[in-house]
Structures are given as C-alpha cells and as structure tokens.
C-alpha cells in the first residue's frame, strides 16, 4: 500500500547532488510531491526535505540508494506521524472580493492567516500550516478572486531526539578510531 513519506537528508554542498538524488527516484518512477532545499543548522551542509508517496518497502530501498551517494551524509525516512511539518503559502486576492461580507474576519479567526500587504487592487495573505489547511484556505478565498497562489514544499522536524550534530560527531569519531582492513584494491 502506498503511503506518504517525508525523506529528510543531509548532504555536502556539492554541485550535482540533487541530480543524483532525483535520478534514483526517477528510475523507480517515484514522483517528488514536494521538495525543499536549504542550508542546515550546520554550515556547509545542505538539508533536503522531500515528500513522496510509495510503499514502505520501496521507500527503504531508495533511501539506502540515496544514502550510498558519496556526498550524502545521512538519510531519514519518516511517516507523517513521526514528524511535525509545515508548509507556507501566499495568496494574492482582489481587495474588492476580500472586503465583502465577513471574509476578512473569518480569514483571521478561522484560518489563522496573516495579511502582508494591502493595496486598492489586491491584498496579499500568508498562511502556515498543513497541506490540507493551505488547500482549505485556497477554497475559502476562491470566491473573492484569487489572482496568484504559491505554496512551498514541506519542512519538517522529527519527534526523535538524536540530532544531525550527533551523527556527524559519530562519523568523525569512528574515523579516528577505526581499524582499517587491508583492501585488495590498493
């Protein structure tokens, strides 16, 4: 059975790494439903958050293949229950439409949205929340005339406690104390 997974991964900030990752997903015909890339809390290390729908078996296979890439540091796979996630969306709607009836009040009270800019022609609204909440607000605003709509990919924080810094330290420690087996290829 297919299910939604959030794949979070940390990579070195090297050219081409995103291509290598998407190649792995493409070969397995897995569509990336959303993707967010940015610098992580550790400088020089990029964080990628991808949302995919696939089977548990397949997500583990591709996660291992991604983690195998030389420039990838660590890959985490999470179901929606294991993370706290947010998306952000901006809506540009006609001022006339939004000013009619109780729209403005409901916008703030029911949808917890913010107003970023007001002009005589349009108003820009911002909303953080789940995919469903953001889509819900879009439906709510539709009657006012939505001029533009843009939403981000997902960002997520895990409920687990072990953090990236701990992994990095582990790797460096392992390197310092490791015992090197003789390679055939040397």
């Amino acid at each position: 059975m297919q299910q939604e997974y959030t794949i979070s991964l940390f990579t070195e900030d090297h050219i081409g790494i995103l291509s290598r990752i998407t190649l792995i997903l493409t070969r397995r015909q897995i569509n990336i439903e959303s993707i967010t890339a940015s610098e992580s809390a550790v400088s020089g290390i990029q964080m990628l958050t991808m949302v995919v729908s696939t089977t548990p078996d397949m997500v583990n296979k591709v996660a291992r293949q991604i983690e195998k890439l030389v420039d990838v540091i660590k890959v985490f796979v999470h179901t929606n229950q294991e993370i706290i996630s947010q998306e952000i969306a901006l809506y540009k709607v006609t001022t006339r439409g939004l000013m009619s009836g109780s729209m403005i009040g409901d916008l703030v009270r029911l949808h917890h949205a913010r107003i970023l800019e007001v002009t005589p022609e349009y108003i820009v609204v911002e909303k953080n929340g789940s995919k469903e909440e953001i889509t819900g607000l879009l439906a709510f605003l539709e009657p006012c005339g939505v001029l533009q709509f843009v939403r981000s990919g997902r960002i997520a924080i895990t409920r687990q406690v072990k953090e990236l810094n701990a992994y990095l330290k582990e790797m460096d420690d392992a390197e310092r104390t490791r015992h090197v087996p003789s390679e055939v290829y040397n």
Partner: protein
Amino acid sequence: MKEEIKTAAEQEKTGLEPEISGAEALLRCLVEEGVDTIFGYPGGAIMPVYDKLLDYSDRLRHILTRHEQGAAHAAQAYAMVTGRPGVCFATSGPGATNLVTGIANAFLDSVPVVFITAQVTSGLIGTDAFQETDILGISMPVTKWNAQVKKAEDIPDAIARAFYIARSGRPGPVLVDISKDAQFAGLSYSYRNCTYIRSYNPVIQLQMRDIESAAVMINHAEKPLILAGHGVILSGASEELRALAEKGGIPVAATLLGLPAFPNNHRLFAGMLGMHGNYAPNILTNQADLIIAIGMRFDDRVTGNLKKYAPDARIIHIEIDKAEINKNVRVDLEINNDAREVLAALIPLVRQISREKWIREFRILDRVEYEKVISPETEPDEGEIRMGEVVKAVSDLTEGNAVIATDVGQHQMAVARYYRFSEKSTLVTSGGMGTMGFGLPASLGAASGNPGRPVIAFIGDGGFQMTVQELGTIMQYQIPVKIILLNNSFLGMVRQWQQMFFNGRYASTEMVNPDFMALAGAYGIQAHRVTQRGELRDAIVTMLAAEGPYLLETVISREANILPMVEPGASVSDVTLTYR
C-alpha cells in the same frame, strides 16, 4: 572541496614546489597512486596531457587503443587482474561519450576504474562549444562518483578523491572531467592521498552480535548453501570462504563473476547458479534451509522467478553495499560489511560438521547433468565441434590457472560452465551488463596488467566484430593474447532464444562473416582455423606455445544450444536439461 585544498596548501606552504602545469600535475598524481599503465585515446581538449605524457613515458606506459570503448574495457580488465584501479583517458565530446558503455560495464560489475576526460576551456562550458558534451550529466547514473575540475590547483585533490572512492567500499568507476585551461594553467603542486571523506563511510564497524547470530543459524542448519559472488574476489576472501565451507561442510555455488572465488574442482563446489548454471545448485537452492549469500546481489539471472525463490530457506546476506540488501530478496539476517572481515570473524564460531547426506544430493543431480548435457557437450565423438569441448580442452591444458577473458553470448556461458577455475585463475567477463565487444579489448587490458600469466580470450563471431579494431592495438604493442574465436556464424544466444521462444523465426541473427584468417593476416597476427575435431587439441597446444598474439578460429556447430536453462519467468528449480 575548495576549502580543503586551501587549508592543505596553507599548511604546506613552506614545502611547496615550483609551479607545474595542471596536465603535469595530473600525471604526477597518477604516479603517486602507483599507476604504471594508462589506456586511452587523444583529441583536441586533452592534448596538453598527452604532450606531457611524452616526458613521463619512463613511468607511465600509455596504450593507444583504436576506440575509447576499447580503452575503457581494457582499463577495467587491467584492474580485474592487478587488483589496482585501472586508468583511462579520453578527450571531450565524442571521446567522452564513446566511454559510456565501458563506464556502465565497470559500474555494474563493481570494478574500480578512474576515467579522466578532458573538457573544453572553462569559459566555453555550457555554450555547446565544439566537442563539448555534458559528460558529467551523462555519466552520473553509471559512476560511483564524478566531478569536474576547472582550476589547475584543484586537480590533485580531485584525483586523490577519485582513487580513494574508486577502490574503497564497493569498488566502482569514477570520472574526473578536466577543462583544457586547467590543464594548461600552473599550480604549486603538492599531493596528499585521500583517506577520509566525511559523507562517505566505506568501512563499517563489525557487529559481533550479527556474526554470532549467523553462526547459530549455520550450526543449526541441515541444508545450508553458500552463494559466492564477485564480492568474495573483490574483498580477497577466497581463503576464508574455503575455510568456512570446509569447516561447516557447506556446498558453495557461485555466480558468473564469483566462479574463481572457489576452486571448481573442490568436492564442495556446487557449480554455477542461474539461467545457464548447473542443475544441482539451481534445484537445491529451493531445498536449502539456509542460504549464505556472500558478496552477491541476487541478480534476476541468478534468482529466476523471485516469488518461487528459495521458499524453505532462511537467508543470511553478507554484503558491503547496504543498498543491495533487501533489494531483490528479503533476507533474515543482514550483515553489511566486507566479506573477508565477516568470514574471518565467523569461521571460529562455526562448528566442524560434515554433511555427507546433503552433499550427496548435489552429486546425484550432477550425475544427471553430466549424462544429459555435459558429456555430450564436452566429449562428443561425432558431429560438428561443440563449444564445450573447446573450452574443456583449454581448461585441461592450462590446468584451470589461466586468465580467461570472454565476450558475451553462448560462448561466454560455455566458458563459465566448462572452464574449471582455480583460485589462481581470473575470469574477466561482462556480467551485469552483458556487453558484446568486451572480450577483445578486455583481453589486451588483462595481458598488459599480467605479463607472466597466459591470457586466453573466448570470443563469438558477433562480438568479435563489435570491437575487432583492437587487433590493431594488439599488433602495435605485440600483446600476447591468445584469441579463440568460436565461430557459429550466428548471434548464437539470440538465435537460441528465437528457436526456443519465437517459433524458430531467425530474425537477423545469421551472419555472413569475413575471412578471419585474412583479417588476422592484415594485422600480422598468427592465425589458424580448425574445422575438424581431430585437429582441435593440437591446434590449442600450438596456440598456447606460440609467442605473441595468436588467433585460433574454431568452426563450431551452428545451431547448438546452451543447456541447462532456467527459462525466463521460471523458478530456478524448474531448470530444464533438454530443449523441448
């Protein structure tokens, strides 16, 4: 990458040498990595490197092949016989794209090859300049790692990484693309071997708990079977494999690339697995209660129908590449580590057992296969010459100790089935990709890396003509390969499938062939043609005794089939001995 170079350069500021060119730096790096042979082909963008190569000819031998694909296969074969990464040069554009088949072939068979391609001047990259191709993008899915270098001072670090990545962990091909201006530009040269990359951890801590579990599973099994793959050879674990098998009384079956991992004349050798493998290991895979898979990846040619694969067995998978575990077959115990390390730790925990009853089951089936298939194929006394008897004669005369190269097709399967590989032998063949045209360039690469041992190439008439131009390379460098051309005037393997699965409709598989004797003559290569059984053995003896390169064409049965066979979609235990 850049930052590390800066710190390395800063630290060593006092010890720096005067400036040399990027091209020369590349060659010095290769010398530092212990390279002595390069296979390649020049062109505009890589000319600065070739120019410097003249000054380094005392340390670096360059073998000019007749096509970049040939250089790639030769470099791979060189790595397979020497145990050191192969090195291959090509120019930008068509030179680089001609490598792709060779890179992919090395990738699927986990062989370390460092490919160096030249790129157009950095200012022109991305503009569709003359002979510019995006070789980084093209090679991405078939390299373990690749990188582009546009500054001379980045060359040493890139080369150091390339070698480290190629040979560590699960080995594989890497590619470094160097712009022409970086080859010309100067740098203050210093070299440091790469031994650590933060994001890459090829050495894994051994978990004794897993080893203990494996030992318990082995000690309690009644019908254990070892499946040995290329990984056993790559990790140098042949001795450990033998010790484990002998102590535990466990039969050893091998994949195509794993054949030389275990002496084929050993009483515990169970034969080759898979589509054209042996009868006993295929059938008994499905009766085993424990499978110990070592350095292999459950390729579909090995497993047949996965739904009916090894239903009664628990599976232990010892494999250095974690992504291969649970990829095709679900396993009960995964041991993600180097085969040699694991086996060395496992052997003391395994009980000394002899499993004569289980071994006897193999012998009974072996006997059936011998009578139905092997004997008619290797000891016929009438009819046309068979591939099997040619291979067996060579096997006997070389006592299983030669370096054997093959191309792809029926003859490849005949070699796998009828050459008795010893631990001293090497098999250089295209496994995962099944690349026709591999055999001839691979044989010259193998012979360049291993001057002492005889190198014998078995090649079909189809595949021979895919890279036949490499006879020119063999002539130029007088590389003493012994080529056995098994000529059935057919693309035999495809013809066999047409006969078996497409109602005998031979669509474009019959070939009108050239006069191979005249062809060899044109290259000044000694040659002989055999059409009669009575002449065969003497002809092989003469070939083996000859100095220098030699072509022996054997005209063989046109429409013989390779059997047994696990038909596509069938279970391994439904292996058929006869063609219906």
